[in-house]
């Protein structure tokens, strides 16, 4: 089916999410809490867009208000939806950057900034939208987390489920059970790597990783010395997926070196004149 985004006609499957369609067609919709590999959360509210279906469009046209330059505009016909979880099931027209949307995003960013004044990602977006830091709703000065829930989703996806949102209301936060080092945490850093505002601190020092107050032993590539992961992480993955291919003759290789090794092996077997014994 056809979806018109900002005047550009795009092809879409029924049930596809708006954000995917826009991304595929190189239309930029700002996001904070979205990660390709995880289901949309719609918690950050930055990816809001305006949606109009055929009937609403016909109505707007009938009232002669489709043109942007006709003074008094009645855009009540358009729905505001979060692009990351809005499935397209009919031919619609979408606006991703109207004045109304920019105003709404400004309001959202003002609140996000008040919540997490230390977050660089939000700071950058705020600059882009011309939002000033508003001290009327100040939260903790050192806060970076916007409670989007991406880290929790990533940890669940790993199958570890070591973190969750705890408490309620103003005291809500992301934490391990009882604020103690979690037994199920494998130190994979999935949470920290998906966090849009860098709110989850971890350190990799002297072959040790510390995250969520738990210490892990780091495993490095036997060839190039690049960090592959933590010991617990590799054991966990091994348990889930069977013996891993990168354990080869006692060698632990990173993805890159593994590719190099495979390539050299292929070269070796594909040399002219070699026969397979």
């Amino acid at each position, binding site marked *: 089916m056809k979806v018109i985004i900002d005047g550009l006609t795009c092809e879409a499957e029924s049930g596809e999410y708006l954000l995917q369609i826009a991304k595929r067609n190189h239309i930029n919709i700002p996001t904070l809490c979205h990660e390709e590999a995880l289901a949309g959360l719609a918690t950050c509210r930055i990816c809001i867009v305006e949606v109009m279906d055929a009937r609403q469009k016909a109505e707007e046209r009938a009232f002669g208000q489709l043109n942007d330059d006709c003074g008094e505009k009645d855009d009540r016909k358009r729905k505001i939806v979060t692009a990351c979880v809005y499935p397209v099931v009919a031919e619609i027209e979408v606006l991703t950057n109207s004045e109304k949307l920019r105003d709404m995003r400004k309001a959202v960013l003002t609140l996000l900034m008040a919540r997490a004044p230390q977050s660089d990602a939000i700071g950058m977006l705020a600059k882009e939208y011309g939002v000033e830091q508003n001290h009327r709703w100040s939260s903790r000065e050192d806060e970076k987390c916007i409670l989007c829930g991406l880290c929790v989703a990533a940890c669940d996806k790993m199958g570890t*489920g*070591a973190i969750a949102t705890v408490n309620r209301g103003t005291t809500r936060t992301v934490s*391990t*059970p009882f604020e103690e080092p979690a037994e*199920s945490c494998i130190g994979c850093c999935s949470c920290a790597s998906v966090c849009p505002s860098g709110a989850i601190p971890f350190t990799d020092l002297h072959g040790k990783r510390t995250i969520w107050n738990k210490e892990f032993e780091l495993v490095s590539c036997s060839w190039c010395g690049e960090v592959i992961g933590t010991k617990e992480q590799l054991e966990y993955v091994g348990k889930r997926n069977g013996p891993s291919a990168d354990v080869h003759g006692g060698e632990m290789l990173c993805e890159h070196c593994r590719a190099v090794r495979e390539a050299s092996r292929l070269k070796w077997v594909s040399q002219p004149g070699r026969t397979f014994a």
Partner: protein
Amino acid sequence: MDITELLHRYPAERRYMLAVLQDIQERYQFLPKEALCQTSGYFGVPLSKLYGMATFYKAFSLKAKGKNIIRVCDGTACHIRSSTVLLEEIERLLHLKPGDTSVDGVFSLETVSCLGSCALAPVLVVNEEYYGSVTRTMVGEILNHYGPAMGEVPVWDVGSAFEENLEGNGGSAIGDRLAWDGGNADEWA
């Protein structure tokens, strides 16, 4: 009845988790860590999710509670009718702040948002027993029902400098004037 028995009263399906937590809370007056771990194992749900659940609902406590739980209503009606005075009196007698448990494990103090009996404001509940129109003087008397076993000397001093000021006005703020200065009693002594 131990935790295993509590658990096995329900099928191991996620939708029964909340009911199980409620049962554990009822049985122990709080959610012991060990119980949460067992529940997590029984339902095959990460401990973190249960911890999130337990911290979300006010009905659950992760700290051990006293034998008797005092709940002082601090809903709008009770607040206007000086529920804070009751809290101060309890603090004076038992040295407990909301959320605390006494050292001897006899009392725990909590505030609740509304008990739905606003006509009786201010309301105080001990365990399952409701007390309405509570005044400062009544607090000590009520607590004496629950404290030490009969025949022992009560440990709380019920005597109060303002008994005559406070009697029989249903605890309303208009009568005892203590609500206005945040209950700073010494001024009126």
